[in-house]
C-alpha cells in the first residue's frame, strides 16, 4: 500500500498531523519571503513588545519583529531537523543491515562502536564539533546525525535480526542470493514502518538538541536563529510573558507533535493493513 494511498485513508489524528506538518513545511519553504521585515532589522523601540497590529507576534529582546524572525527561523529548525533525522535514520538502518546480514565479528565491531557513540552525550559532541569546525548548517546536521545514528542503529539492528530469521530470508539464502540482495530487497522493506515511527521521535530529539545547543551558545549564525535559539535569546522576557518566548516555544511544540501524530497514524495504519 503506497504512502499516498495511506494518506488518503488517514484517521483524524493523522489528518491533523498532516495539516500541521504541511503548514510548517510551507513555512519552511516560503516563510522567508512572507516575512514583513528583515530578520535582523530593529524595527521597534520597545523590546519584548506584546501582540500588536504592527508586530502580530510582538518584538524580541532587541526590538526586532518576532513574526519575521519566526518565519525565517522555522526554516532552520525544520530543515536541519529533517535533514539530520533523515540522515540518522538512513545511516542507522544501513549500518544495521550490514551488521545484521554480515553477522559475526563485523556485527560485534559495529555494535561496539555504536555503543561507544551512544554513551557520548550528544550535547558534548555538539560542543566539540562546533568548537572544532565552527557553526554551519552542514556541520549542525552532521553533528545531530552523528549523535542519533547509533540510536537508530540499535532499533534497526534489533528489527533486522528478527526479520533475518524469517522463512522468506531462509528461502532467499537457499535460492543462492547474495547478502546485499537479502539485506536490501528481502529484509529492508520489512523494517520501514517501525523505522518510520522511530524517525518521528528522532526528529523531536534533533529539534531539542538544536535548542540545547543554542543554550550552549552554538547553533545557526546570527542574525538568523532556529526556533530553539529564539526561545533561548528571549528567555529573559519570560517573566513578563513576552510573546517572543511563548510563540517560538509553541511553534516547536506544534511542529513536533504534528510530525508524530502524522507518522504514528501512517505507520500504525500500515501495520494494520499488513496484519
Amino acid at each position, binding site marked *: 500500500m503506497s504512502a499516498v494511498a495511506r494518506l488518503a485513508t488517514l484517521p483524524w*489524528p493523522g489528518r491533523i498531523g498532516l495539516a500541521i506538518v504541511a503548514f510548517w513545511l510551507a513555512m519552511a519553504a516560503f516563510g522567508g519571503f512572507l516575512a514583513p521585515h528583515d530578520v535582523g532589522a530593529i524595527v521597534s523601540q520597545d523590546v519584548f513588545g506584546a501582540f500588536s497590529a504592527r508586530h502580530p507576534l510582538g518584538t524580541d529582546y532587541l526590538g526586532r519583529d518576532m513574526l519575521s524572525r519566526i518565519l525565517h527561523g522555522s526554516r532552520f529548525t525544520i530543515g536541519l531537523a529533517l535533514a539530520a533525522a533523515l540522515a540518522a535514520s538512513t545511516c542507522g538502518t544501513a549500518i544495521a543491515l550490514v551488521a545484521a546480514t554480515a553477522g559475526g565479528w563485523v556485527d560485534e565491531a559495529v*555494535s*561496539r*562502536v555504536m*555503543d*561507544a*557513540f*551512544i*554513551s*557520548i*552525550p*550528544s*550535547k*558534548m*559532541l555538539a*560542543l*566539540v*564539533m562546533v*568548537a*572544532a*569546525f565552527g557553526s554551519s548548517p552542514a556541520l549542525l546536521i552532521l553533528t545531530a546525525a552523528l549523535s*542519533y545514528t*547509533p*540510536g537508530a542503529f*540499535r*532499533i534497526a*539492528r*534489533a*528489527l533486522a*535480526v*528478527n526479520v533475518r530469521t524469517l522463512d522468506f530470508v531462509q528461502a532467499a539464502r537457499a535460492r543462492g542470493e547474495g547478502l546485499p540482495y537479502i539485506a536490501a530487497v528481502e529484509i529492508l522493506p520489512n523494517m520501514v514502518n*517501525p523505522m518510520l515511527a*522511530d524517525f518521528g*521521535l528522532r526528529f*523531536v*530529539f534533533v*529539534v*531539542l*538538541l538544536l*535548542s*540545547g545547543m543554542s*543554550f*550552549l551558545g552554538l547553533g545557526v549564525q546570527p542574525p538568523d536563529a532556529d526556533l*530553539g535559539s529564539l*526561545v*533561548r535569546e528571549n*528567555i529573559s522576557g*519570560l*517573566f513578563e510573558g513576552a510573546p517572543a*518566548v511563548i510563540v517560538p*516555544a509553541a511553534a*516547536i*511544540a506544534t*511542529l*513536533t*507533535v504534528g510530525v*508524530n*501524530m502524522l507518522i*504514528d497514524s501512517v505507520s500504525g495504519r500500515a501495520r494494520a493493513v499488513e496484519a
Partner: protein
Amino acid sequence: MPEPARGLPGALGRFRGSLPALVVQRVAVGLVTLVVVSAIIFAITSLLPGDAAQAILGQAATPEAVAALRAQYGLDQPGPLRYLHWLAGLATGDLGRSYTAGVPVADLIAGRLPKSLMLAATTAAVSVPIALTIGIVSAMMRGGPVDRALNLITLCMVAVPEFLVATIAVLVFAVKLGWLSALSNAMDIATPTQFVRAYAMPVFTLCFVIIAQMARMTRAAVIDQLSASYVEMALLKGARPARVALRHALPNAIGPIANAVALSVSYLLGGVVIVEAIFSYPGVATLMVDAVTNRDMPIVQGCAMIFCAGYLLLVLAADLIAIAANPRLRHR
C-alpha cells in the same frame, strides 16, 4: 536524548550459558567499548583548536608563556604518545591529573559523581513509575481518547526545550510562590525538606525530558504482548482488562521496558548539562563541558569513561532484569 529499545536487547539474542558467564563476557566487552570510547574522544578532541595552555592563559597567552605551560603539562609531546600514556595510566586505575585544577581527575570526579548519581537516581525513582503507568494505561486504552491524550501530553512535554521548562519552574515555584529553592547546588542537605527543596525542580525538569520516551516504549512493549494469544486466553478465563495487562502482559514486556528505562536513565548522567547549569548543580556533566572549554583533556576523558561505563552497566542491568524475569532464560 535517550534511545528507544525494541524487543530483547541484542545481547540476549546471543545469550548462551549461565548468568555469571554472561556478566563476565559483557564486562569484558564493556572494557573494549571503553577503550573505543576513549579513542573516539581523543580523536575528536584532538580536532579542537587551542589547548589547555592557551585556554588557561586566555588573553594573557603570549607565545613563551604558552610554550612554558605546554612543557609543564607535557602538551609538547605528540598526541598519540599522550594518549598511550593516558591509557597506560588508566590500566593502573589512574585517570591522570587535571591541567587547570592541578588535582587528580579521580578526585574531581569523586567530588561530583555522587551528586550526579543522586540526581539520576531521584529522577529515575520519580519518572519511571509515572512513565510505566502512563505507558500501561495508554496501552490498555489504545486507540481511545485517553491513549491519544496521554500520547499528546507526553509529546508536548518532550517537545518543550528543557531550559524553558526549568526557567518556568523556577519562576513559578521559587520566585513567585517561594516554595522551592531556585538553586540546587545540593550543599548542606540535612533534612528531607531541604532535600525536596533542592531536588524538586531539577527532577521535575528532567522528568519532562525522559518520561515521554519511556512511556512510549512501555506502551509499545505492552501492546506487543496484548496481541498474544495467552492474553486472549486470560480474557476468556474471565480476567478483567486491568488484570490482563498487569498480571499477564506486563511481565512479558519487562525485557524491552527495562531496556528503554536503562537508555533513558543513562541520559541522566551525561545529558543533563542544561539542568546542572540552570540550577548550578555540581554534577559530572558540567565538569565535562567546562573541561572541554578549558581543553582539560584528562577530565574530558575521565568523564567520558564514567558516562560510558554508566551506560554499559545500565544496559547490562536491563539485560539481567530481562533474564531474571524470563523463566525461559532463567531455567536452562
